[in-house]
């Protein structure tokens, strides 16, 4: 079995212990053996992967030193990939082959990574369990009866089961961090605008952000070095300078001030998750950090604010799916209106239609001020909480989700219970700050993630903190045992 350690794999490739073609063949074989029961991939791009691996081997032979060259990875099926099916896990895009490449996948391509395929997800990234996919639910590799989390559930499950060295994800309200927590891997949602949204199929444009999902913080740093940075094709891309995200990994944490918000440890939190989270925080004390009690008083308002803003922006973004230019069109439309209405209601799943209607309502005449505008004002209160807290402390830590991975079908009948799953992750998107999830323990053999939130553009700091934790703990190295076909 190969390690999921990009630095080590890069050395082994250069020492000729194996080639990228051999590494890629190994991963394709792993996917074929184990993915029938996990369902983490929607599309496998076998021929293209081998072709990219051959090119990577030449680049390595030519002495190129980017550690990502020849590394087999997977992309969430929300990133447009030229000439490769891109479905967003929706029937309405079941046949969509984009004529262009997203900036994230383009940069990963230029860095020499080998795309194995496109991973499963909640349809249009709307969900916290990966049960809302047109291509079926993804299973959690630690327990096939449990969800992997969502919406980047396929990427999380694939990395957790070592079916890819690393993967990309996107995070609008927790969609990288919560599945990373449920599957026991490391995931980073960067600052809003740090990674280009060009070619990402839009969900909520003021919240969406792409990021890496991998075994370790160090691997996430390698991927950030590829994907982060200004892109003039994204009108909200930040011009703030990027850093070498691996450069600070080994800095000591002496004097680091960690804030623990009391609102993150309230009634909603499973007491066992609270204990694992506090034990992890205490681990940082051993590394020279100090823990400070803080308050983010408007945390509870992140749920109503998010569940107005995200559906509103989604209803606008998803109006482009009309059966005219790409994707699904209904059979025998009798007129234009019939074509729009049936293509959309036959093409979108129930959760997506519900959110489109909630958003349409919130933006409709007479309700805009009471919903969208009100939610944006509350969004400022939530941001201000973080700005205030981050003048007192360097980073904020807490749980990622109230529980470990729950069972399949256990929350599908109660949408509000599902929405409450996101209580600890939504606020980072509303404020636009970077946040990550790192493995910090287990409860009944299911992984628990620790959330680390930092100031705007402090990705290198977060990765440093996570890396130091991972140098002193081994939670992130634990992998689920997969049997044949599972």
């Amino acid at each position, binding site marked *: 079995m190969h390690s999921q350690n990009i630095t080590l794999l890069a050395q082994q490739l250069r020492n000729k212990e194996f080639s990228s073609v051999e590494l890629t063949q190994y991963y394709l074989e792993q996917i074929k053996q184990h993915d029938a029961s996990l369902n983490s991939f929607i599309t496998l791009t076998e021929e293209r992967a081998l072709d990219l691996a051959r090119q990577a081997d030449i680049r390595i032979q030519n002495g190129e030193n980017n550690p990502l060259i020849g590394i087999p990875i997977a992309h969430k099926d929300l990133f447009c990939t030229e000439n490769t099916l891109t479905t967003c896990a929706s029937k309405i895009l079941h046949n*969509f*082959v984009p*004529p262009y490449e997203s900036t994230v996948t383009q940069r990963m391509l230029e860095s020499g990574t080998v795309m194995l395929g496109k991973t499963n997800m909640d349809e249009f990234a709307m969900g916290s369990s990966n049960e809302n996919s047109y291509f079926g639910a993804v299973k959690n590799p630690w327990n096939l009866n449990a969800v992997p989390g969502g919406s980047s559930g396929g990427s999380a499950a694939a990395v957790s089961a070592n079916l890819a060295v690393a993967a990309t994800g996107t995070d609008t309200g927790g969609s990288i961090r919560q599945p990373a927590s449920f599957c026991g891997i490391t995931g980073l949602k960067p600052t*809003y*605008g740090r990674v280009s949204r060009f070619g990402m199929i839009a969900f909520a444009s*003021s919240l969406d952000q792409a990021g890496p999902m991998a075994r370790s913080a160090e691997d996430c740093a390698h991927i950030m070095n590829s994907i982060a940075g200004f892109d003039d094709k994204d*009108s*909200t891309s*930040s011009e703030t300078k990027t850093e070498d995200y691996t450069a600070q990994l080994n800095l000591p944490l002496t004097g680091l001030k960690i804030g623990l918000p009391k609102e993150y440890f309230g009634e909603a939190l499973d007491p066992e998750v609270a204990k694992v989270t506090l034990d992890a925080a205490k681990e940082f004390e051993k590394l020279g950090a100090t823990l400070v009690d803080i308050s983010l008083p408007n945390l*509870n*308002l992140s*749920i*109503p*604010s998010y*569940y*107005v803003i995200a*559906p509103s922006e989604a*209803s606008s973004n998803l*109006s482009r799916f*009309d*059966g*005219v*230019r*790409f*994707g699904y*069109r209904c059979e025998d*439309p009798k*007129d*234009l209106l019939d*074509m*729009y*209405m*049936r293509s*959309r*209601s036959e093409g979108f799943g*129930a959760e997506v*239609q*519900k959110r*489109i*209607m909630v958003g*349409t*309502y919130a933006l*409709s005449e007479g309700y805009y001020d009471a*919903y969208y*505008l*009100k*939610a*944006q*004002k*509350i*969004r*400022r*209160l939530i*941001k201000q909480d973080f700005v205030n807290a981050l003048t007192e402390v360097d980073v904020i830590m807490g749980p990622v989700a109230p529980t470990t991975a729950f069972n399949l079908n256990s929350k599908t009948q109660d*949408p*509000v219970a599902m*929405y409450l799953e996101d209580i600890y992750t939504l606020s980072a998107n*509303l404020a636009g*700050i970077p946040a990550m999830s790192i493995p910090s323990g287990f409860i009944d053999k299911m992984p628990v993630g620790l959330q680390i939130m930092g100031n*705007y553009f402090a990705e290198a700091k977060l990765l440093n903190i996570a890396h130091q934790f991972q140098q002193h703990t081994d939670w992130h190295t634990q992998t689920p045992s997969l049997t044949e076909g599972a």
Partner: protein
Amino acid sequence: MSFNKQDVQKVAHLARLSLSDNETEQYQESISSVLALVEQMQSINTDGIEPLCNPLEMTQRLREDEVTESNQRDSYTAIAPRSEKGLYLVPQVID
């Protein structure tokens, strides 16, 4: 506030979604529960608070008005459900 069947039908029409009676009933229930969830916003005093629409408070970046894209007509229409001679075909709009 209550969200009745007519509200669902009106919103569905605005969003260009066609719902069966059964679906209308299900969405009435599920949308009502979302609206009840977000209702707690109304009890918060937000007088004098500016809405936050971009978390970095960036303003729209502008560029010179020059042609930056090349002609992609063929590759774009190739993936359309129906197209002919570089045009998208839809059901007849004008009698």
